[in-house]
């Protein structure tokens, strides 16, 4: 095939056509020859079989009579047929009855040698063997096989026919191929011509002759191919032209890009340098930040370290020196000296100048007269100054905070923060640790429930938090448990605060053990005082009581004396008995007064709401003023909470005094009441003799009377009793008066029951 590849298309066409013709012819001839041979064979077999049958028929009589000679003669007739080389007749038992041979020269001879053992050939069949065709044919007479005819043909007709066939075939082959070649040589020019021309054109175009065009010879596929080729060449030319233009343009672009790139590289390098400068600055600021973050560092330590850090950020660090001044103190680099070239940035604290940063250039003046310092360095100075200002402000604030924190830390009260959900202790001050005997770490692992004795179960804790949520703040007394199990009294203030969406309870607890003890001491003292008071009261009561008995005895006996011995006493005696009785009476009144006074505060009555508007008419009835004296109630009186007997006593005593001392023919007594803050202020005014101002205090003291008892029988206890009652209720009593015009007694009562006002009561008791 490689051979095919290299030869021209013209030869290829010729070869293909020739080869095709040859193959077809050969095939046809071969088929023809084979067919002819097969046919010839069939004919041969048929002819030979016919001959054998004929011979068999002719020999029947000879066989029947066993006349071998006759048979031989019959067989010799075979010599007419040259190709039959042998014939014989066998008897049924296989013996040769008669035979015929023909040698190569055509002479009839006896059989010499035969390659085929004819006895083995079955009856009525044929076999090709040893270049001979052998046919057998049974001789049948009256339905009985009487012998067999064998004929052999040397197939010379067959062979000669084959030779002839081949010769004819070769002659035809040669003739046909010759004609085919001649035809091909002419016809192939129609196809290969344009192809060759196309090939040549393609070669030329391929060499660069883009203007060359293929000549179109026909309208067939080749013509189309030529057109396409021309189109292609045209397109090729166009794209080539376009490509050339593009390349030219691209080249221009490339060179400009190249230029740009070079410029950029230069710029990049500059930027890199600047970046390095910036990195220095950033490094300086970063170092500052790192310094500030150090937990224990002081502002002074920062200021000490800053000058070197700033200097390192300068382009000309070697020839630059830095000085920071703050609060009048200088912090500077080792090489510090002043020069003309400098930069400056002020440090301000809360808008007031507190210091400055200065930078000086101490090297030789730069080349080309350029400034050694650049704007960025000034910016850095400003930034550092600003940062230092911030730090200074922050430090100041921190100092303040530290003072405040110290205040909490060192506070004499336990201050702690707890979480409102579980009561976990989140933070404590030192005092809390001290008081509870725990370390801070221990406390941070516990809850308030472990410490506060009143919060031992969850429900009490929940109640507390609920109360806190409602009120925001609770102040309560409680008992805290120390680590050793002992307890101490506290007064705790709990406050719920929110910070950054989280709630905390801030607790302040004060150890009130001492106060409690003081309170207990005080309570003890009060108890003591009360007991002394009680004794005093009892003493007053007993004494009064015991005094009354003999007094009554004296009186009774005196009366009996006066009755039983009236006839024995003269007038003077009678007068003296009378005086004795009146003195005994007065003494009795005095004792009753003391008893009454001691009864106030000793005898307890339930405090109830007393409507004074209803009470007063009863009191006035009891006082039973004479018709010359009018008692009026000026306005509606309030309802006060008190012991009814006592308030009755107050009004009764005041009214009876006013009635008793009334010196005017038309007595006017007025009862009034006005509001006075948290108190009611009652007044009982009369138009009686009045009291001199110097006696205003005296009249409220026991047994003090302003008139002779012989003139006005009075114990001098009434006002003292009133004063005691009023003061017991937390009120006051006083008098305003003008001599001969009248007096007004005022007293106040609290609107609301003030509870057990121990101190007021105590005071009242002590006075008694």
């Amino acid at each position: 095939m490689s051979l095919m590849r290299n030869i021209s298309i013209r030869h290829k066409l010729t070869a293909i056509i020739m080869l095709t013709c040859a193959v077809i012819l050969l095939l046809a001839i071969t088929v023809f020859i084979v067919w002819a041979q097969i046919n010839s064979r069939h004919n041969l077999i048929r002819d030979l079989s016919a001959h054998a049958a004929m011979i068999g028929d002719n020999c029947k009589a000879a066989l029947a009579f066993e006349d071998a000679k006759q048979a031989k003669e019959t067989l010799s007739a075979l010599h007419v047929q040259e190709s039959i080389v042998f014939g014989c007749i066998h008897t049924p038992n296989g013996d040769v009855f008669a035979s015929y041979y023909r040698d190569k020269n055509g002479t009839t001879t006896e059989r010499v040698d035969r390659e085929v053992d004819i006895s083995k050939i079955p009856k009525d069949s044929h076999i090709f063997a040893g270049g001979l065709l052998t046919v057998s044919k049974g001789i049948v007479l009256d339905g009985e096989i009487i012998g067999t005819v064998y004929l052999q043909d040397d197939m010379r007709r067959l062979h000669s026919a084959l030779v002839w066939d081949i010769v004819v075939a070769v002659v035809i082959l040669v003739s046909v191929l010759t004609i085919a070649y001649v035809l091909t040589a002419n016809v192939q020019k129609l196809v290969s011509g344009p192809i060759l021309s196309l090939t040549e054109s393609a070669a030329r175009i391929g060499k660069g002759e883009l203007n060359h065009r293929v000549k179109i010879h026909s309208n067939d596929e080749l013509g189309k191919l030529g057109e396409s080729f021309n189109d292609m060449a045209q397109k090729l030319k166009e794209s080539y032209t376009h490509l050339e233009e593009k390349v030219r343009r691209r080249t221009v672009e490339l060179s400009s890009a190249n230029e740009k790139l070079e410029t950029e590289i230069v710029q990049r390098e500059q930027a890199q340098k600047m970046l390095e400068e910036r990195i220095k600055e950033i490094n300086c600021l970063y170092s500052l930040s790192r310094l500030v973050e150090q937990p224990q560092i002081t502002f002074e330590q920062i200021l000490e370290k800053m000058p070197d850090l700033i200097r390192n950020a300068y382009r000309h660090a070697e020839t630059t020196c830095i000085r920071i001044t703050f609060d009048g103190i200088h912090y500077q680099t080792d090489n510090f000296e002043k020069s003309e070239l400098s930069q400056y940035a002020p440090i301000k604290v809360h808008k007031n100048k507190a210091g400055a940063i200065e930078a000086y250039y101490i090297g030789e003046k730069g080349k080309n007269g350029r400034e050694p310092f650049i704007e960025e360095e000034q910016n850095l100075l400003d930034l550092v100054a600003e940062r230092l200002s911030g730090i200074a402000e922050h430090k100041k604030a921190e100092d303040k905070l530290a003072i405040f924190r110290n205040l909490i830390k060192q506070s004499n009260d336990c201050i702690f923060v707890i979480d409102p959900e579980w009561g976990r202790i989140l933070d404590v001050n030192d005092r809390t640790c001290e008081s509870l005997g725990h370390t801070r770490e221990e406390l941070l692992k516990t809850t308030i429930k472990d410490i506060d004795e009143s919060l031992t179960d969850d429900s009490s804790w929940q109640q507390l938090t609920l109360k806190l949520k409602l009120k925001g703040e609770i102040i309560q007394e409680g008992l805290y448990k120390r680590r050793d199990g002992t307890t101490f009294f506290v007064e705790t203030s709990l406050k719920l605060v929110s910070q950054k969406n989280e709630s905390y309870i801030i607790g302040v607890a004060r150890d009130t053990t001492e106060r409690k003890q003081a309170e207990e001491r005080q309570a003890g003292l009060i108890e003591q005082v009360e007991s002394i008071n009680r004794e005093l009261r009892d003493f007053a009561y007993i004494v009064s009581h015991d005094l009354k008995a003999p007094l009554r005895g004296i009186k009774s006996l005196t009366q009996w004396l006066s009755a039983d011995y009236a006839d024995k006493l003269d007038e003077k005696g009678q007068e003296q008995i009378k005086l004795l009785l009146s003195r005994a009476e007065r003494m009795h009144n005095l004792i009753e007064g003391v008893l009454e006074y001691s009864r106030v505060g000793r005898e307890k009555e339930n405090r109830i709401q007393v409507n004074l508007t209803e009470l007063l008419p009863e009191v006035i009835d009891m006082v039973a003023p004479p018709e010359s004296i009018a008692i009026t109630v000026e306005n509606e009186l309030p309802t006060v909470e008190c012991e009814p007997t006592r308030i009755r006593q107050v009004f009764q005593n005041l009214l009876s005094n006013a009635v008793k001392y009334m010196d005017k023919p038309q007595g006017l007594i007025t009862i009034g009441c006005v509001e006075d803050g948290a108190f009611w202020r009652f007044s009982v005014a009369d138009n009686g003799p009045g009291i001199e101002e110097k006696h205003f205090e005296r009249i409220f003291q026991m047994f003090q009377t302003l008139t002779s008892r012989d003139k006005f029988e009075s114990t001098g206890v009434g006002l003292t009793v009133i004063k005691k009652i009023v003061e017991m209720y937390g009120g006051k009593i006083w008098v305003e008066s003008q001599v001969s015009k009248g007096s007004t007694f005022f007293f106040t009562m609290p609107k609301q029951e003030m509870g057990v006002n121990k101190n007021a009561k105590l005071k009242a008791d002590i006075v008694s």
Partner: protein
Amino acid sequence: MRNSKPILLVEDDIVDAMTVERALGDLEISNQLTHKINGEETLEYLRSDSNETPCVILIDLNMPKMNGLEFLRLIKADETLKEIPVIVLTTSSEEQDVDESFKLGVAGYMVKPIDYEEFLEKIRVIDSYCTLIELPNRG
């Protein structure tokens, strides 16, 4: 008095006792007056079978050894003695004493007046009371 049983006076003050005696005389009350000077002695007297049960006991509260209230408490706890009407005759006008006495089932409470005439009046009332009111009579 309606019956002739004795009146039992428990009084430590001799003048007061005299006053009662005089008043009984002045009012012509013929019942015998038995005078005891304290609670202890009175109880002893009452518990002795030889003594006649009094028709009324007049008792002072303020007495030595056993005061009136203590005596009342004991006598009222005693099944045989608690029926005897007791009238307190005392100098004390303290409400507390009044309350306490009535709680202990006294038949009356009287504050001794300083004036004899008034005293007479009170004894007269006691007499009327004992005459008009049905009292347990155990012979």
